[in-house]
């Protein structure tokens, strides 16, 4: 249903002006934008480290930087990308913006806590940026002991504090989402009428709440051990480094599901809208999100197959790791089935969705290689692993994030992005991504270890391909940054529902008023009530 294409007089962006109105806001939509700015900054920082890494790896010799510096490069690339970009990205930006709107609420359950989450995120980021600027940290983002707790001479404590503090941002966001989704759904919005984006964020929030505290206490113990020189994880002092790994990976494996589940939520929205079809197997997708959240906590030992862990425990973790792939596969099958006989259009968000489905499938399947004990002992700590997780994180999460940003951009900003440039960027990103990371599967399989800045000369061709791909990928990321900002001023004004999508967020003007809805909506339809023959998007 089209509404007149004119901006409402007052909405959340122009209701008040000035820095104070942003820094003291409790409006979930403004907080989402505060997060958007922050994580974009961190994406640049993490990306800068990636550039340096790929530059170094153009030649077999370690000739750009020294070993010690290279250790810092990959550590900080990982830390910043994981904790300050990937984990917050979709939940803190799109989740914050959309969760209340999709359920017909005026805000999250605890708006001030939401703002506190952002400030906590910033403080954690500041600690980490201090460590980066003051000389860096070189332990690997995984902080393995006793190197991190005893022997490293870099700014481990500052970084550990940064990660510790930021963890609470994640916890509080998850808490806010859980309570909001349970208690603030609009009348008629039963659980099985919820958009799958909400199910995904609910499952993500469960993980945030249950896993992050364990990381927090573990990283705090590392910092304490470092400062007080006690031996909780140092074998020379009676401690056990494997204990650290158990505690660390208990969070850090589910963390990858914190990253991917929201992107999967975005996928369901995009695939439904751009096939003009209800999502196939709604219930299966909803429950598969929960299954991933639960099973994801049972598999962490697959990061420790060569650590000295018990073989029997390893076997159990291996089996469970195969199991956790099943709900993800269910989603991919169901999205594919949604596409079948749908009326598909190829707008930018849909291009990202297609990219996601293909790349996530590759990443997921290679995860099975790694879950298999016999293969893992050969490819662990090689570029095979690096390629696997970048296919998921970048091919999956970042594509999902960009697809979501484009899809909801008219709602967020009241403007359309330029479609031609959007499609071009998506294509450049897809090509750049594959050129960067596919060679890394080959490199890893051929034996190139990760975290080394030199390698045997026979690996150079693939490394140069990867670096070339990275430069294309970088260009691909810059293009949307330019045109999205451009669109704020010069983009076509968007009406409330430019995609003719289903969902409560599209029933309110673009940009929305502060309280989201003039009147609380009452829901009677199922989710994705797309019917064949309805008005089509051009």
């Amino acid at each position, binding site marked *: 249903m089209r509404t007149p294409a004119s901006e409402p007089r007052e909405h959340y962006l122009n209701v008040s002006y000035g820095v104070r109105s942003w820094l003291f806001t409790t409006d979930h939509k403004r907080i989402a934008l505060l997060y958007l700015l922050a994580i974009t900054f961190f994406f640049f920082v993490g990306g800068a480290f990636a550039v340096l890494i790929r530059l170094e790896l153009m030649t077999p010799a370690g000739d750009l930087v020294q070993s010690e510096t290279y250790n810092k490069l990959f550590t900080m690339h990982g830390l910043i990308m994981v904790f300050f970009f990937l984990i917050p990205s979709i939940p803190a930006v799109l989740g914050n913006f959309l969760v209340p709107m999709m359920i017909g609420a005026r805000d999250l359950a605890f708006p001030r806590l939401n703002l506190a989450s952002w400030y906590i995120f910033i403080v954690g980021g500041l600690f980490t940026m201090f460590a980066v600027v003051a000389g860096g940290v070189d332990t690997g983002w995984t902080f393995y002991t006793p190197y991190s707790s005893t022997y490293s001479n870099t700014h481990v404590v500052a970084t550990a504090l940064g990660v510790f503090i930021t963890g609470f941002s994640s916890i509080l966001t998850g808490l806010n989402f859980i309570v909001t989704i349970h208690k603030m759904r609009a009348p008629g919005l039963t659980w099985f009428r919820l958009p799958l984006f909400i199910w995904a964020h609910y499952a993500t929030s469960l993980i945030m709440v249950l896993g992050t505290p*364990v990381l927090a206490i573990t990283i705090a113990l590392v910092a304490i051990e470092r400062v007080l020189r006690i031996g909780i994880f140092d074998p020379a002092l009676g401690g056990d480094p494997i*204990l650290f790994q158990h505690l660390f990976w208990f969070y850090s494996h589910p963390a990858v599901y914190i990253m991917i589940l929201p992107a999967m939520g975005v996928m369901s929205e995009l695939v439904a809208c751009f096939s003009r079809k209800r999502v196939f197997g709604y219930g299966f997708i909803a429950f598969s999100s929960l299954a991933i959240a639960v099973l994801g906590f049972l598999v962490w030992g697959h990061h420790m197959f060569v650590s000295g862990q018990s073989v029997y425990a390893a076997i159990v973790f291996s089996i469970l790791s195969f199991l956790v792939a099943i709900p993800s596969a269910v989603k991919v099958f169901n999205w594919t089935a949604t596409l079948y006989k749908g009326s598909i259009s190829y707008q930018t968000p849909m291009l990202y969705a297609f990219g996601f489905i293909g790349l996530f499938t590759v990443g997921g399947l290679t995860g099975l290689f790694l879950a298999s004990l016999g293969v893992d002992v050969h490819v662990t700590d090689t570029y095979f692993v690096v390629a696997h997780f970048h296919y998921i994180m970048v091919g999956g999460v970042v594509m999902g994030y960009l697809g979501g940003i484009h899809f909801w951009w008219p709602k967020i900003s009241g403007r359309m992005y330029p479609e031609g440039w959007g499609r071009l960027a998506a294509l450049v990103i897809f090509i750049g991504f594959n050129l960067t990371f596919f060679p890394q599967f080959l490199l890893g399989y051929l034996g190139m270890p990760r975290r080394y800045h030199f390698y045997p000369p026979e690996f150079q061709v693939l490394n140069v391909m990867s670096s070339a791909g990275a430069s294309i990928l970088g260009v691909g990321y810059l293009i949307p940054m330019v045109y999205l900002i451009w669109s704020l001023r010069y983009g076509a004004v968007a009406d409330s529902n430019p995609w003719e999508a289903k969902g409560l967020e599209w029933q309110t003007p673009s940009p929305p008023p502060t309280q989201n809805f003039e009147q609380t909506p009452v829901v009677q339809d199922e989710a994705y009530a797309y019917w064949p023959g309805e008005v089509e998007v051009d």
Partner: protein
Amino acid sequence: MRIGQGRSRLTEIHAVPAHQFDDLDQQREASSLGMWVFLVTEIMFFGGMFTGYTVYRHAYPEVFADASRRLSVVLGALNTSILICSSLTMALAVRSAQAGKRRALIGFLVLTMLLGSAFLGIKSVEYAHKFHEHLVPGATFTFPGPRAQHAELFFSFYFAMTGLHALHMVIGIAILGALVALSWRGRFCPEDYAAVENTGLYWHFVDIVWIFLFPLLYLISRT
């Protein structure tokens, strides 16, 4: 969780829910669920250390028992009892708020604060003893026998776990103080006392952590 406008009397004045909530019931349920979810995060937060403790106790049972005997059962049991008393007074404080009894509410809140402070006082005495006995992990740690390192592990966990617990007590006492001030100004009534109930949940949780800490740290083997 805040009420829309200031109020001066407990009884008839109706509170207004915060703007994001439709009614007081929704607000109350949301804040209660929020506190329970927060307590789950606390279970996992402490749980990481409980897990580490379990691993090491399983690995070094005799040394842990020896180290545990250096703690004072008397002080530990006394502290446990004090904390249990404080849970009682906290529960009675919540009950007073439920029943609209402002003076009783304030009285029980203050009692809880006093008991909590007594707990912390005894804890400091214990810490001081450990300092004098050179049982604080680090450069000054001394323990007889060849497995001193493992005993130091025990004490690392002792200080980390009771320290984190004590920090939670301090925060709890501060919140109780705020509640006393708010109660004094007539902020709570039977229709809206969520802050008191949720603080109670937090306080009881901190008590439960101690209920497990006490036997695990103090009572490994007293034979």
